[in-house]
């Protein structure tokens, strides 16, 4: 206890911590616990799990390393941080993988028990980094975590394997001490989680406390840190990932529109969690169907939409490719469906657990014929909630398929979300047609939207399908003029959506030398990069696009007010292509596909390079 007073407490604005170890070391859990506790203290935070695609990658190897990065702050933040200030490395492979990413002079906590010759060999290291000088310049804390955990749990009646497994809680306890966090939330969580295995709960709690007191009583850590709560707007908050927000967003859309929610889906990383969440919400009348493949996923959703449901299908890039033909059927039959694509690294199987923005052109144009769909993109984990609602609203109002793009980063990343009340959410509905008088399946309202007439309604029996339809009657038509008309109507319908969505808002001055244009999941990084560039005296404005087809109606105007337009994207320049061809403007591209979010500094340097010496 004495030491608590003698160890100096340093107050920080922002800290980035990386928990890393073997996949079997429980680092995702450790990171999640640290995040939840930190969130409940009122810090703003942002997380980025980084785990291998293999379920059981070889133990101790680089492939098997699983990391969880989080940044928390006393001000509002938008990204999980570029370079960690603290790295917890449970084995040499974890140290080797993340050493190049952390700050110079960062603190490194290592589990010395796993730095034996065989561990070094598994990590393909010729010498021990703890001894060969490669950690010079860092604050290295060597802790025999496994030994200390075993010692602390020697009286517990659990298997030796379970004892060793508890070592992540020892590490978590140390970090709680180091960052002045309370243990209670995790203790409560353990009691709940292991209700039926009290011995395991007890062991983990012991390990947690042992780690905490280890920090407290030994003098090994030279500093303790404190991060004051952030000044967030008042309200009730929860920590939310993009996938959970997407799932809840669709439930909200179902409740607010009065249409039963139907999901047809085939499991694929990183989208499966949306299926996992929605299948739990049976008491909301949500119907989920785990289909035999992605084609059946969307085809069944089209069937459900014909039946009057709010019908969705969720997938990632390879699955979107399979849904192509059926998406065209939804265009032709003018049925409302939402296709969620949680983008991952491509092409082909690519990088299943990593993020990318390279499916934009696939979403825009990846169908045969003139086949326009609405394309939306969520910008942050919590924004997925609002965009899921928005995608549903647009699909039903305009009777069109909508593709909602998210990505692996915002899908799995979390942030605090000020939870809206049900009463704050919009209500929307495209009423089902029930009146047989003068009914025509392809008649049109002011939005060019056709009536939604569903089987089971007396007097409205009609046929739809993938063959070209005569406008108004919906009969099969091979008439040249009709086909021309219908192609144009389908396009105009999408364009009309622009009148129904909000204008894009410029962050910064409305005209000037440089505008940074982003879309989708890069919002956090770009916001911070631009903010920091401004702090260094650069004049730069920023917009972020969440509607890509159609674009907000003021976008052309906004672009025309700037000399230069920088478009950073995690692809080879897909939004750039669309902006150039739509508005005949030049763009400067910034493209990096590392399977990870941009580094804030990389974008900031690009901004500085463009603006040159103009920061005086």
């Amino acid at each position, binding site marked *: 206890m004495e030491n608590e007073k003698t160890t100096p407490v340093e107050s920080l604005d922002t800290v980035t911590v990386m928990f890393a170890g073997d996949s079997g070391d429980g680092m995702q859990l450790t990171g999640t616990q640290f995040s*939840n506790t930190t*969130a*409940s203290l*009122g810090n703003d935070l942002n997380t980025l799990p980084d785990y291998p695609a293999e379920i059981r990658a070889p133990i101790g190897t680089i492939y098997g390393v699983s990391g969880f990065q989080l940044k928390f702050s006393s001000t509002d933040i938008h990204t999980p941080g570029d370079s960690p200030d603290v790295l917890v490395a449970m084995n040499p492979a974890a140290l080797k993988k993340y050493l190049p990413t952390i700050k110079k002079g960062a603190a490194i906590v290592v589990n010395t028990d796993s730095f034996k010759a065989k561990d070094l060999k598994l990590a393909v290291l010729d010498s021990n980094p703890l001894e060969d000088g490669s950690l010079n310049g860092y604050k290295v804390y060597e802790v025999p975590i496994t030994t200390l955990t075993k010692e602390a749990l020697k009286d517990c009646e659990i298997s030796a394997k379970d004892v060793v497994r508890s070592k992540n809680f020892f590490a978590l306890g140390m970090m709680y001490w180091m960052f002045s966090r309370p243990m209670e*939330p995790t203790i409560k969580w353990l009691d709940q989680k292991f209700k039926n295995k009290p011995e395991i709960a007890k062991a983990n709690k012991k390990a947690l406390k042992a780690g905490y007191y280890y920090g407290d009583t030994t003098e090994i850590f030279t500093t303790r840190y404190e991060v004051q709560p952030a000044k*967030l*707007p*008042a*309200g*009730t*908050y*929860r920590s939310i990932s993009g996938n959970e927000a997407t799932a809840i967003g669709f*439930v*909200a859309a179902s*409740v607010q529109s009065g249409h*039963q929610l*139907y999901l*047809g889906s085939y499991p694929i990383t990183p989208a499966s969690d949306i299926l996992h969440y929605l299948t739990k*919400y*049976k*008491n*909301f*009348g949500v*119907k989920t*169907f785990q*289909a*035999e493949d992605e*084609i*059946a996923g969307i*085809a*069944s959703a*089209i*069937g*459900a*939409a014909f*039946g*009057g*449901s709010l*019908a969705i299908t969720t997938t990632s890039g390879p699955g979107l490719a399979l849904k192509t*033909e*059926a998406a*065209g*059927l939804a265009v032709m*039959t003018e049925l409302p469906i939402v296709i969620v694509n949680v983008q991952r690294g491509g092409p082909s199987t690519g990088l299943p657990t990593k993020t990318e923005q390279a499916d934009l052109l696939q979403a825009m144009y990846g169908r045969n014929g003139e086949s326009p769909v609405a394309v939306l993109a969520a910008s942050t984990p919590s924004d997925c909630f609002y965009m899921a609602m928005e995608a549903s609203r647009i699909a039903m109002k305009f009777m069109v398929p909508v593709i909602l793009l998210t990505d692996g980063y915002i899908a799995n990343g979390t942030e605090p979300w*000020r*939870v809206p*009340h*049900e009463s704050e959410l919009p209500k929307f509905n495209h009423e089902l047609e029930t009146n047989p008088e003068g009914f025509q399946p392809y008649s049109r309202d002011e939005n060019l939207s056709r009536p939604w007439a*569903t*089987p*089971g309604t*007396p*007097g*409205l*029996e009609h*046929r*739809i*399908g*993938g063959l070209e339809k005569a406008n108004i009657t919906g*009969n099969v038509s091979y008439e040249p003029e009709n086909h021309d008309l219908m192609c144009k109507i389908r396009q105009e319908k999408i364009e009309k959506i622009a009148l129904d969505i909000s204008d894009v808002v410029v962050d910064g001055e409305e005209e000037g030398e440089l505008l940074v244009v982003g879309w989708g999941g890069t919002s956090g990084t770009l916001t911070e990069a631009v903010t920091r560039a401004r702090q260094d005296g650069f004049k730069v404005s920023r917009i972020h696009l969440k509607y890509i087809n159609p674009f907000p109606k003021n976008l052309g105007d906004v672009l025309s007010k700037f000399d230069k337009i920088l478009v950073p994207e995690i692809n080879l320049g897909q939004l750039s292509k669309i902006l150039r061809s739509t508005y005949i403007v030049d763009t400067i591209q910034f493209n990096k596909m590392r399977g990870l979010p941009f580094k804030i500094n990389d974008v900031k340097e690009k901004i500085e390079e463009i603006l040159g010496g103009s920061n005086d």
Partner: protein
Amino acid sequence: MTNKINVNEMKLTPKDFKSDQDVRWCPGCGDYSILAQVQRVFPTLGIEKENFVWVSGIGCSSRFPYYMDTYGFHSIHGRAPAIATGLKIAHPELSVWVATGDGDLMSIGGNHFIHACRKNIDMKMLLFNNEIYGLTKGQYSPTSERGKITKSSPYGSIDYPFNPTSLALGSNATFVARAMDRDPKHLQKMIERAGKHKGMAFLEIYQNCVIFNDKAFDELTEKETKAETTIYLEHDKPMIFGKERDKGIILEGFEPKVVSLKDGKYTEDDIIKHNETDESPVRAFILSHMTDDPNLPTPFGVFRQVLKETYNEALENQITTVTEKLGKGDLESLLFSGNTWEVKG
């Protein structure tokens, strides 16, 4: 509910199911007969007209929904079972029918077919099997016999064909039957049985394509040969066939064999009795394979009908159970679920 059904039964006639669209199949195509029999049976099923839906894929046969004055969805190649699945799950009270062809269902839609069978999704599936790709003008199909000469197999096809009833039985369809376009009375009976089945009802219909595969089934459908080449399966009746009903089927181990009832060696008691409702699918599977043996008559009728919980029933039950347990979903509490904390202004 019952009241309503009776009224409808009295009211509806085959004409009520004819749409205003001109039928565009080739003159003499077997599809006409299937359409006519469906239109005859539908008024008798006791289902409100607005609750019938036809879903089809692509092919000559898949034009079917346009000619029925019910709800209809002419979709894309092979995907009708998947579309029908979503519709039935969303709207369990509908009577969902699929019209499909041998290319549509056995080739591009094969995956959806076996899974719809496996899951026992409550739909009625009519396979118009003409053993050819009609709409694309005559390539061999997954049900064409080996050695078939077509535009895409000028030296004879080298594929081994699927036997659709075997495939359906192997995929655990709960109703599996076969009929032919040229026997309208029997076809009507089979459509009616399929329509009344609760669960996946698969009905294969041999259908003559006059243009690209004419006479493919003549041996089975024409008066001169029919009695000797076909056998009509009837529940609980011995499997007897022949012009003079003088032949029967016995089982030697797993092998079906034709025996004569004339020479005194075998009597009716030796002949296997057909049992549609056998718990085990094995017997039905053996019968379905008689199709491929030139020495055996080809079976028509219901191979198997069993009742078990359908996918859509099970889903509704699960929704009810979970709702009883958790209470009806409340959006406000869902929004505020999980780990929440307060931030004061």
